[in-house]
């Protein structure tokens, strides 16, 4: 064995436990999930002959398509809004803040508390006797509590924006932080005012962070279960609620598996499209 081969062999040996764990806890379950989506279930018996029955069932029921599209739209809106809201904060921390470290810590601390309870807090804010309603009543702006705040897609979007905020701030901050300040000075030197500098230098150079933020928020948001369950109401149900139902009340695992596979396929495709589109757009900026 040459030293290079021995080095690589030692490396692979050392990697084996981690890769085995990932194979067992991720690759194998996903493989089985894929297989399950081609199976059928009759009562307690699972028929392992391969069919497209589950996918056909999804296609034949417009209700599934509706929830799918709603989930993707809600997740896309939440990720875009989270990015737009977080970008100025990340910019401020990277370029202007004195105590960067403190700011980053402040942004991350709410993220270290129970996600369930954070979502629940939004229910309290938006609810019938919630913060907003009691505020409005105290100011005599409304006579009875308004009910359009909670149990709708907007409430879900708002709660998701809040829940995934650090995933927006941190990647954008990291990409902004890497920008060599002399590039901005060069842009000024060559005649750009601050607004032009931002669009021609800062924005394209931070695009990798924006894309990372989008992916890190969009994927879990699409599959979020807690938020639609607590603040979504009937019109705010999302795909995770449907998937869970197949493993609970409806007890149709193959259908649940097919929904899950479709979800993965849809979010991956959309992420790739969004990332490519964003990169294209950024490379157009000259």
């Amino acid at each position, binding site marked *: 064995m040459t030293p290079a081969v021995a080095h690589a062999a030692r490396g692979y040996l050392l990697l084996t436990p981690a890769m085995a764990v990932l194979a067992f806890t991720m690759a194998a379950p996903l493989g089985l999930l894929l297989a399950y989506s081609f199976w059928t279930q009759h009562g307690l018996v699972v028929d392992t002959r391969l069919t497209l029955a589950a996918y056909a069932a999804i296609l034949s029921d417009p209700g599934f398509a509706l929830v799918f599209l709603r989930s993707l739209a809600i997740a896309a809106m939440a990720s875009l809004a989270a990015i737009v809201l977080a970008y100025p904060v990340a910019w401020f921390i990277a370029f202007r803040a004195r105590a960067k470290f403190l700011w980053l810590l402040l942004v991350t601390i709410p993220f270290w508390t129970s996600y369930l309870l954070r979502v629940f807090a939004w229910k309290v804010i938006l609810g019938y006797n919630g913060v907003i309603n009691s505020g409005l009543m105290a100011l005599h702006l409304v006579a009875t509590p308004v009910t359009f705040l909670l149990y709708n897609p907007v409430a879900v979007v708002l709660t998701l924006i809040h829940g995934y905020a650090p995933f927006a701030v941190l990647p954008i901050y990291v990409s902004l932080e890497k920008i060599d300040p002399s590039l901005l*000075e060069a842009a000024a*030197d060559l005649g750009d005012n601050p607004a032009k500098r931002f669009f021609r230098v800062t924005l394209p150079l931070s695009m990798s962070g924006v894309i990372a933020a989008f992916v890190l928020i969009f994927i879990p948001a699409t599959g979020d279960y807690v938020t639609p369950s607590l603040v979504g109401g009937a019109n705010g149900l999302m795909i995770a609620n449907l998937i869970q139902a197949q493993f609970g009340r409806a007890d149709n695992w193959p259908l649940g598996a097919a929904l899950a596979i479709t979800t993965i396929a849809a979010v991956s495709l959309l992420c790739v499209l969004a990332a490519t589109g964003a990169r294209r757009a*950024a490379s157009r900026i000259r």
Partner: protein
Amino acid sequence: MSSPPLLEIRNLTKRFKDRPAVENAGFTIARGEFFSLLGPSGCGKTTLLRLVGGFIPPDDGTIFIDGEDVTTRPPEKRLVNTVFQSYAIFPHLDVAGNIAYGLRSEGVAAAERERRVTEALHLISLSGYGRRRPHELSGGERQRVALARALVKRPKLLLLDEPLGALDKHLRESMQIELRQIQREVGISFLFVTHDQEEALAMSDRIAVMQHGRVLQVADPKTLYDAPNSRAVASFIGTMNFFHGRVIGSDGAAVVVDLPDFGRLPVPKNGGDNFAPGTMVTVAIRPEKVTLSPVPAPGSVEGRIASITYLGDRSQIKLAVGTGKIPVTAILPQEQSIQPGADALYVSMPAVSILLLRD
């Protein structure tokens, strides 16, 4: 009426946390001049350049470009461009995109822009490199792109912050020549920062020597070399022998100085400086002006050879004179050789070559 200088700075001061990085700096640069800022690391060259470029505001003082006060103008509104020490090539744009950056900012039409980019690529001998990405360029190529990017803007003054610092010795020397050629060709004034005195001497029309944030002397290379106005300037430019002494009298155009190891020496007064007897002074002489001889000559003293360093075309000799506390450095041209076994030479310092500096 003569037109105003291209750049004039007056009493410029910049402090960082109360510590001055540039203090009371003032000089002017003429049209078409190659002007260098020379000084040791940390003396405030970059800070001064950034003040002129408009990247940092001064605490005090004024900057005029073409007679106009630009002290409070942002960089994008000054007719000055910069070649950054790190080059600051935009990584997300190709070479042509980098060079065209400032032209787009001005709103130059596409056809004109393309023509000027092609012209600039030709000027820096990188024709055909327009589509290359910055990471596909060598250090020297990157440096030239940075230069072209600034030059296409046709600034009145180009600021260069140690543009050759990151290049190896060979490339640096050829770039020095190229840079000087380009500067003559385009006729733009250059304000060039370097800590390399040889580079400054070789390239500049005039040089400002800085130390601790202050401008010590502004002069052409020959004057700086032959007649430095202070010990700091003299020691920074080339090698110099320094001796401490006391003025003991005056003899027409010369003062007589008493040096511990050399005895009494008549030294020409440069300028109108009046050295009263008793003043402590520094006497300086370049190594190549020290004459050595195997036999005693009038006014010479014996020097014991301490070391000989072979430098190719010449040798540098260190000799101990008198008490031997301060070695004398001299240069021995190749044709003059030392007899094998010789351990002493006679050292003399021609009066015309001696500089008198106040302590």
